[in-house]
């Protein structure tokens, strides 16, 4: 691929998986951005933390389980995954419940990271 501009792109995920198509669409965008060698980070806030809750079993609802894709992100050099501390706590979850290595940050710390981005994409 030709040399282009590299932007800091943050994909902000704030919806639970499966109830809507947002989580899956977000992953598609992440993979596309990574394919273009952009500096991509993912944030999981509010209901979005459920996307990373270990052990999705989607056979019963006949929907593709896209959780394995999160584990593949590292192969695309996407390894900045941030999870909101308050959102985990409000849902009885902890870092150990996450299906991939993440960095747990407060909402305010995530807000600081947002300030540093070139582009924010909301899902």
């Amino acid at each position: 691929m030709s040399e282009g501009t590299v932007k800091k792109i943050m994909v902000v995920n704030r919806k639970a998986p499966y109830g809507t198509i947002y989580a899956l669409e977000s992953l598609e965008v992440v993979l596309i951005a990574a394919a273009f060698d952009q500096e991509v980070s993912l944030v999981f806030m509010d209901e979005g933390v459920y996307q990373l809750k270990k052990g999705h079993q989607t056979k019963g609802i006949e929907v593709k389980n896209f959780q394995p894709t999160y584990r593949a992100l590292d192969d695309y050099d996407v390894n900045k995954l941030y999870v909101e501390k308050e959102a985990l706590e409000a849902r009885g979850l902890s870092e150990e419940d996450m299906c991939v290595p993440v960095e747990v940050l407060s909402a305010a710390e995530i807000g600081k990271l947002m300030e540093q981005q070139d582009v924010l994409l909301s899902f």
Partner: protein
Amino acid sequence: MLHIVNKSPLERTTLDSCLAAAQPGAAVLLIEDGVYAATRGNSAAAKLRAALGNLEIHVLAPDLEARGMAQSLVEGVKLVDYAGFVELVAQHKNCQSWL
């Protein structure tokens, strides 16, 4: 940076999420049903007033007017029209929509 909230604070928690993450000096723009947060008597108005201390809060006037709330705007909140909306987006480095 600019934060945009488009949901009523009594229907969804997006305003809370926004206010928890927004850094001092940031701008917030309330549009669509989000404008209700900036109306007197709304139970979210108190947290909005508190946020006015370190955030610049704007409301999209056409959305406020459409809802019959033009006379109820919380003091200290700035009104913008569509051109002002565009200006806010252009003025800031980036923008997060709390959908």
